[in-house]
C-alpha cells in the first residue's frame, strides 16, 4: 500500500528501540536511513545536506565544486579485483562523479592498529597511488593515527574529495521526470560476491573479481555529448534496489524495471543461488545508473558502451508517476512486484 511510510523525520535521540549501534545501521538499508533521518540529518540540518546526494555541490567564488567523504572498513583488506586502497580512491572519485563533477583532489586519513604489518600498509598505499593516477586525481593532504593493539581492525581508511562541476545541469533525484529512462552501466553483484566468497572461504570455477573501477570517464563523455543527465547514482551498499528506492522516494515518483534485462553474470547468479542472496541488493564498486530523458536513451547507451567500465550498459526501466516513492519490477514471468529496501545486510537463509 503506497501510503505506508517507513520512517519520518524525528528529533535526534532516542533512536527507535536500538540501545546500541548495530551493523545494520551501516548496511545501506532501512536501519541506516533511520540513523540518518533520526539523528544525523536533523542535527546538521542545512539545505546542501538535505539534498541527500552522494556529495554536496557548493558555489564558491563563482565556481561550482563538489565535495564528498567516505570511510573504508572492508574485510578482507585484499580481494580479487582490488583492495581497501583501490576502494578508498575509486569510492570517493565515484561519489564526485555521481555529482557530475570532475574529480580533482583527495585527502586520505589512515587509522592504523598497532602491529599492522608494514608490508600490507605498503601494498595498500601502492594501490592508492596507482588508482589515483588512473583516476587522474591527486592526494594533496592527509592524516595518520595509530591506535593500541586490539582497538582497531588493522587499517581503516578515510578519503575526502573535491571535484569541479563544469556544466549547468542539476544532477539530483529532484531532477528526475516522468517518462525518463533508467540506464544501468553493466552487470551487477560482482563486488559483493567477491567479498562474500573470500569471507566464507568459497571458491568457484572461475575467480569472481570485484568490479571496482573509477567511473568519471563515461560520465564526462555523456556530459560532453550534451546528454541531459537528470540523476546519477553509484550502486554501492544496498545495490541497485536501494539506489532506485532512494531516488524514487526523494523524487516522489515511481520507478519500474524489468528483471529480464538486468545483467548478472552467470557465475555471480550461481553464487547467489548457493548463498541465498539477491544480486539486486549486492554491493557494486564500479556500477552506476544514469537517469536520462527517454529520447536520449540511444545516444547515451552508445556513449556508455564505448567505455570499458560501462560497456555492458543497458536500459532497464523507466520512471512513472504513481504510486509515488515506489520501485516495482516486472518478473521474468511477467508479473509485477515491489522492490523493498532491506532492513540491514542480506542474511543467508537456512535452507
Amino acid at each position: 500500500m503506497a501510503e505506508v511510510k517507513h520512517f519520518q523525520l524525528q528529533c535526534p535521540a532516542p533512536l527507535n528501540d536500538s540501545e546500541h549501534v548495530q551493523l545494520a545501521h551501516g548496511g545501506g538499508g532501512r536501519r541506516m536511513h533511520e540513523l540518518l533521518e533520526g539523528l544525523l540529518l536533523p542535527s546538521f540540518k542545512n539545505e546542501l545536506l538535505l539534498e541527500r546526494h552522494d556529495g554536496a555541490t557548493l558555489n564558491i567564488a563563482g565556481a561550482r565544486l563538489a565535495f564528498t567523504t567516505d570511510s573504508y572498513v572492508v574485510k578482507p583488506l585484499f580481494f580479487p579485483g582490488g583492495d581497501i586502497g583501490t576502494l578508498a580512491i575509486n569510492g570517493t572519485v565515484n561519489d564526485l562523479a555521481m555529482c557530475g563533477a570532475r574529480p580533482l583532489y583527495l585527502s586520505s586519513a589512515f587509522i592504523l592498529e598497532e602491529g599492522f604489518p608494514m608490508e600490507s600498509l605498503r601494498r595498500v598505499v601502492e594501490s592508492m597511488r596507482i588508482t589515483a593516477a588512473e583516476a587522474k586525481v591527486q592526494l594533496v593532504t592527509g592524516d595518520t593515527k595509530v591506535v593500541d593493539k586490539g582497538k582497531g581492525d588493522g587499517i581503516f581508511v578515510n578519503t575526502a574529495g573535491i571535484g569541479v562541476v563544469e556544466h549547468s545541469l542539476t544532477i539530483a533525484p529532484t531532477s528526475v521526470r516522468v517518462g525518463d529512462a533508467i540506464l544501468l552501466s553493466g552487470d551487477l553483484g560482482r563486488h559483493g560476491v567477491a567479498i562474500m566468497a573470500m569471507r566464507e572461504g568459497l571458491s568457484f570455477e572461475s575467480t569472481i573479481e570485484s568490479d571496482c573501477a573509477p567511473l568519471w570517464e563515461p560520465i564526462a563523455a555523456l556530459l560532453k555529448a550534451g546528454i541531459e543527465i537528470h540523476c546519477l547514482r553509484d550502486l554501492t551498499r544496498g545495490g541497485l534496489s536501494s539506489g532506485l528506492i532512494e531516488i524514487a522516494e526523494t523524487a516522489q515518483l515511481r520507478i519500474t524495471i524489468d528483471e529480464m534485462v538486468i545483467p548478472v553474470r552467470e557465475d555471480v547468479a550461481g553464487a547467489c543461488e548457493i548463498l541465498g542472496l539477491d544480486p539486486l541488493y549486492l554491493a557494486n564498486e564500479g556500477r552506476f545508473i544514469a537517469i536520462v530523458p527517454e529520447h536520449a536513451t540511444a545516444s547515451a547507451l552508445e556513449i556508455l558502451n564505448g567505455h570499458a567500465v560501462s560497456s555492458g550498459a543497458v536500459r532497464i526501466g523507466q520512471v512513472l508517476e504513481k504510486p509515488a516513492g515506489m520501485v516495482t519490477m516486472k518478473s521474468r514471468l511477467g508479473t509485477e512486484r515491489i522492490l523493498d529496501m532491506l532492513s540491514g545486510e542480506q542474511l543467508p537463509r537456512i535452507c
Partner: protein
Amino acid sequence: MKYVEEYRDPVAAQQFADAIKRTVTRPWKLMEVFGGQTHSIVKYGIDELLPKEVELVHGPGCPVCVTPLELIDKALQIAAQSNVIFCSFGDMLRVPGSGGDLFSVKAAGGEVRIVYSPTDAVQIAIQHPDKQVVFFAVGFETTAPANAMSVFQAKQMGLKNYSVLVSHVLVPPAMEVILGSPDNHVQGFLAAGHVCTVMGYEEYVPIAKKYQVPIVVTGFEPLDLLQGIYMCVSQLEEGRYEVENQYARAVRKEGNLPAQQLVAKVFQVVHRKWRGIGEIAQSGLGLAPEFAEFDAETRFGVSGYTAEEDPECISGLVMQGAKKPEECTAYGKRCTPDHPLGAPMVSSEGACAAYYRYRRLRSDDLVNVGSKSGG
C-alpha cells in the same frame, strides 16, 4: 544459469498456467507447506498466473517462524555469555525474542557468528578450545542431518566445548494438526521438496489416505510450483487423493537413507512447541540420550524458560493457513520487517515478510502503468 533457468522459463510457465485453467472447474484451496515455496510464489507472482478458483494458502514450514519465543530467549541468554561463541544460520539473528535479537546481543559484545554449515561450528570449536561453541540447531528434516553430523563428529572427537541448542521440527505432524482442525479448509498440499529429499515421501501416504487429500511433493522453482499445482488440481478434479512426486529430479521415494540413519542415531522424536501454534505431540527432534552431553540447554542451565507472544500477533493463524497476513491488524503498522512482532515477518521465508516485501502494491495501483511495465 544451466539447470535453473529452465525452471523459470516464462513460456513454459504460461503453458502450465493455461493447463491449470483448462483443468479447474470449481474453487480449490491448496497449501504450500514450505516457506521457500511461499517465497518463490510471491517473488515470481505465481498466484497471479492462476485462475481465481485456485487459492494458495501458506503453510507452517518456515523454520525461522516456528522456533518458539522461549528458545530464542535461551539463545540470547547463552550468546551473551563471555566465554561463548554462538553460531547460527544467518536469518535466525534477526528473530525477535522477548527482549532483543541475536544482532543486539552481538552489538552489546556477544560473539555471534553466521555459519553456512553446523560442521563449520565444529571447526570453530576445535580452533577455540578455551571457548564454549554453541550451534543453534533449528529447522525441519532438511537441516537435521547436517546438524546431527556436527554432534556425531563432536562426540567422535571427544569435543568438550561444543553443544547444540536444538529446536528441530517435523512436517507430517504439523500437516495432521492442520487437517485435523475443525476449521480446516485446505483441500490439497504441495509438500516440501527439500524435506522429502531427506525423508522420502512414504510417510505422507497414510496422511493422504486418512484425510483424503492429494499431496504432491513439489520443488521451489516457478515451473516446479506450477506443475505441482497442476498435479494437485488434477487429482482434486478427478476425485483422487494420492501422494505424487513432482520433484523427481531430487526426491526418491525412500529418501536419503544414510541421512535418515544418522538423524535416528543422534536425535529422538519429542513433543515440540511451535511458535504461534503451540505444542504438537511427537512433532520435533531432541538429542538422543547417548548424545545428551551436547545439549546446550543443560550445559548452560537455561531450561524452564517460558515467554508470552504479543497478543496482537496472529502468526499462528497465518502459519496454519487460516488467515492471510493482510488480515492482521498489526500488519504493516506495528509489525514490519524492521520491527517484527512475530516470526513470519522476520525471515524472508515468512509469509508476512514475503507479503510485505513483494505485495504491498495493489492491482488497482497498476492501472495506466504504460506498455513497457506490464503488470
